């Protein structure tokens, strides 16, 4: 396969392939962070995670239309505002959903699966009725498209770099919130022992609502970023949901570090195998490996040690 190429060419291809792996890693982290907060910390199986991401994508679409209509001069900057709006809208809807639906089901975690799956169908149909069944095209500012020539032969996609920076930023922000803020302490306390947390004066209801809202908000930001690399349509959220759960479960549901480690290993395995084998085969082998490891280690890569 490589006989006809010079060392320089091969080096360039492998460098670009390395970046492709890192970009996939960042995409996985972005997808999984919101779910890791909701599923990992609260134990809610949120099947509507993909739809919250697509909500972020639609918010980005609306913002881009708004800017090109009323403020074409600022169009190149709209993306940042769109991401903030995506966080707010998806987060607000998340808090509403928690209040209306999820909080009644904390004692029945498996029922959240059905309830949120129903929610995902409802959201899909709402998107379809409002935005139409066809995918919408989100116009990306010129500077975010194309690639950055690192050397003569190595080219790095700009949107990939953007996703990488964003994933790093959000991971750090989530880390600080979870482990360095009083809200994070409360979340962790409620996760570990709801009754006791209530007894020492933590408002568990408010903590739950905020946690769910932030998880959905992060999903919204991810969806907003994915308008650069994927499609925006009523059912596009379904494309992400399997990979997202895969990453979170494989990482060990309750551990954020585990989520990141699992995103890294799955993305690297997949991107390397995609390069040497065919696409479908790579996916099959990745899934087989994950299934194998989970059989040996059902709690995932990193498990939180806590007394039950």
């Amino acid at each position, binding site marked *: 396969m490589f006989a006809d190429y010079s060392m320089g060419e091969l080096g360039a291809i492998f460098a670009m392939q390395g970046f492709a792996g890192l970009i996939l890693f960042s995409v996985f982290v972005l997808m999984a962070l919101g779910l890791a907060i909701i599923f990992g910390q609260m134990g809610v199986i949120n099947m509507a995670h993909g739809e919250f991401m697509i909500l972020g994508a639609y918010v980005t679409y609306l913002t881009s239309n708004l800017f090109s209509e009323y403020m074409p001069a600022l169009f190149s900057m709209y993306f940042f505002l769109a991401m903030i709006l995506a966080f707010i809208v998806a987060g607000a809807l998340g808090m509403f959903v928690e209040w209306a639906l999820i909080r009644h089901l904390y004692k029945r975690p498996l029922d959240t699966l059905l309830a949120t799956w129903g929610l995902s169908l409802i959201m899909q149909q709402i998107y*379809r009725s409002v935005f139409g069944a066809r995918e919408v*095209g989100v116009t990306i500012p010129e500077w975010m498209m194309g*690639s950055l020539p690192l050397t003569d032969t190595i080219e790095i996609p700009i*949107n990939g770099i953007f996703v990488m920076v964003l994933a790093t930023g959000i991971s750090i922000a989530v880390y600080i919130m979870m482990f360095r803020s009083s809200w994070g302490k409360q979340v962790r306390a409620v996760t570990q022992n709801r009754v006791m947390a209530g007894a020492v004066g933590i408002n568990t209801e408010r903590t739950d609502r905020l946690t769910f809202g932030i998880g959905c908000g992060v999903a919204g930001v991810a969806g907003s970023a994915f308008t650069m690399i994927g*499609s925006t349509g009523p059912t596009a959220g379904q494309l992400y949901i399997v990979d997202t759960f895969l990453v979170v479960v494989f990482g060990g549901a309750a551990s954020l570090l585990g989520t990141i480690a699992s995103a890294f290993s799955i993305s690297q395995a997949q991107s390397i195998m*995609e390069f040497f084998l065919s*696409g479908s085969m790579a996916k099959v082998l990745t899934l087989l490996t994950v299934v194998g490891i989970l059989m040996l280690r059902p709690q995932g890569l990193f498990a939180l040690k806590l007394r039950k």
Partner: protein
Amino acid sequence: MSDTPKKPNKQMEASRRSVLMGGTALAASLFVPKFLRAADYPTAAVNTTGLAVTDDEVTIGILHSITGTMSISETGSVQAEKLAIEQINAQGGILGRKIKYIQEDGASDWPTFAEKAKKLLVNDKVASVMGCWTSASRKAVLPVFEQYNGFLYYPTFYEGLEQSPNVIYTGQEATQQIIAGLNWVAETKGAKSFYLLGSDYIWPRTSNKIARKHIEKLGLKVVGEEYYPLGHTQFNSVINKIRLKKPDVIYAIVVGGSNVAFYKQLKAAGIDMTKEKPLLLTISVTEDEIRGIGGENIVGAYACMKYFQSLDNPNNIAFVEEFKKMWGDEIVIGDVTQAAYLGPWLWKAAVEKAGSFDIDKVRAASPGIELTTAPEGYVKVHENHHLWSKTRVGHAKLDGQYEVVFETAELVEPDPFPKGYQ
């Protein structure tokens, strides 16, 4: 996208339209010598098998997904079929009978398609059905149509390898779509090597199989062939592989949401399709799909199919205008939408030739039916129930439309079971 006409004041507009259309119909009746009246065709004579035909109405079915994943694609077909039905009715209908339709939703679910097909045939006794989009849905309804002797007009370009007495295929089968495009790219662009890429299911795999055989017949080289699961959204690895192999042509049959991801990432990876190094040739991206992909992400690519909205002929100009009048200015029309539009017209021609709605008679009358008013130009039904049609190559422009750069001189014969290509 809604499948009811976008009109601010529906009733008033509708009445104005019918007045207009009535005018056209009247004008048409002066020029068309044989204006068919129901009285000349008594119901007992034209309907001997108990179909839903009365003295002034005939009922047909429309069976597409208007909910679920496939509604993205199938909505256009529903719109085209309704337009055709409305136009036929405005001209006086078929054998003097107005067409009434019953619309069922296949809901992107293949067993549902089969169930609804049975309902249309058994309960509603429809005289024909316009419907289905994916091969999977067609395969699901096929036994139903054959058991209850229904008649289906199927609009999508597809992989071939099928020929049912109960189906008329108004889209192209694989060889019609593929071979002319490959010849064109080899002759005019001097392409020597190809990279075949597709979503992982029957249509891309069968199509690429035919493409590979043909490329090898031409004495050219396939340097890679690859499939990705439906819904795959990360194409950076394969893009690197393509870079490594340096093919002259990327032959892409990626579908659905993956399409959008693929073209966006190709562009982001610095592969500028307008430079044609490599050139990108696809058979799966119509104007409909470009709306989701974004014109700026696919400008410079070539697509090979039988119809483009930009076709410059009087039939098509009138068709596009009528379509936009009924469904709004924003709409784009892709290959399958046009093929769906042919369904009701082909059925009308077959019924009039047969002088009967009986399915066996319509089937016998179908081969040889010609349509000179088709937006794509002249088409003709082959013995094998597929259409003779021209194949064209379009060059994607920034505004999401294709510029036609090539069309076959002759109609291409449909060949659903190509010898030497399997």
